[in-house]
């Protein structure tokens, strides 16, 4: 099960630009690395990620092994109503991950 940490400002004003940061615990395995026995470690990277804010998609990304292990992403969105930021992602092993953070709009 993948773990993630999301960072959003404690509180935002309506209409304000908000910076959202997320770090997901994931090896982003390239498929080129070999383990201690010299066997190739199969590729497994998060290839899709999306973020919904109050149910509406505000950010989407397609990623590859070119993104460093424990992928970090930083983007902006405009604060509307108080609500949840729901992240969803999928890796090559078909493992889904989700994470949620609350955005408080004053």
């Amino acid at each position, binding site marked *: 099960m993948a773990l993630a940490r999301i960072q959003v400002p404690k509180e935002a004003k309506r209409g304000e*630009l*908000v910076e959202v940061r997320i770090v997901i615990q994931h090896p*982003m395995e*390239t498929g*080129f*690395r070999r383990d201690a026995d010299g066997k190739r470690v199969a590729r497994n990277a998060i290839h899709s990620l999306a973020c919904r*804010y109050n149910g*509406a998609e*505000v*950010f*989407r*990304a*397609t*990623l*590859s*092994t*070119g*993104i*460093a*292990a424990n*992928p*970090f*992403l*930083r*983007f*902006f*969105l*405009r604060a509307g109503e108080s609500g949840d930021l729901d992240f969803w992602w999928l890796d090559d092993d078909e493992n889904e991950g989700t994470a949620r953070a609350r955005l408080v709009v004053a």
Partner: protein
Amino acid sequence: MKRRGFLAVSLLMVPLRGKTQANAHVSTTDPLVVAITKGKDVIPGKVKLELPALAVNGHSVAMTVKVDSPMTGAEHVRAVHLISEKNPVREMATFYLGPHSGRAEVGSRIRLNGTQRMTAIAELSDGTFWSDQVAVEVREAACTDGG
């Protein structure tokens, strides 16, 4: 032609090779670029790709890409594509944005398999493509040798 005359003519030619010439640094025959642009011109400008000039190792390099856009419903950035010159997987990432983003700026940490040129191509809501390219020197490559 006299030397002075030649000089005058060559000075007149300079503006023609200005910074906004389409496809100046993006190969439009690159299948990866064609897949993104469907053959349209890519114009240098509007995009700012920020990467360090030198990375001690390529395992995790901080990257920021910014696009000059008001990010309104009528005029915004639809997507930003990040392309590597030398990584085994050249299509590094695509970020999809919209008017709700407010600001066209995305940051991440990337792997670089050696010294290379990195390209960012932005697709705007009016259907035009803009780009930036930067060179990064990488002392220890990622991807194919180790993590």
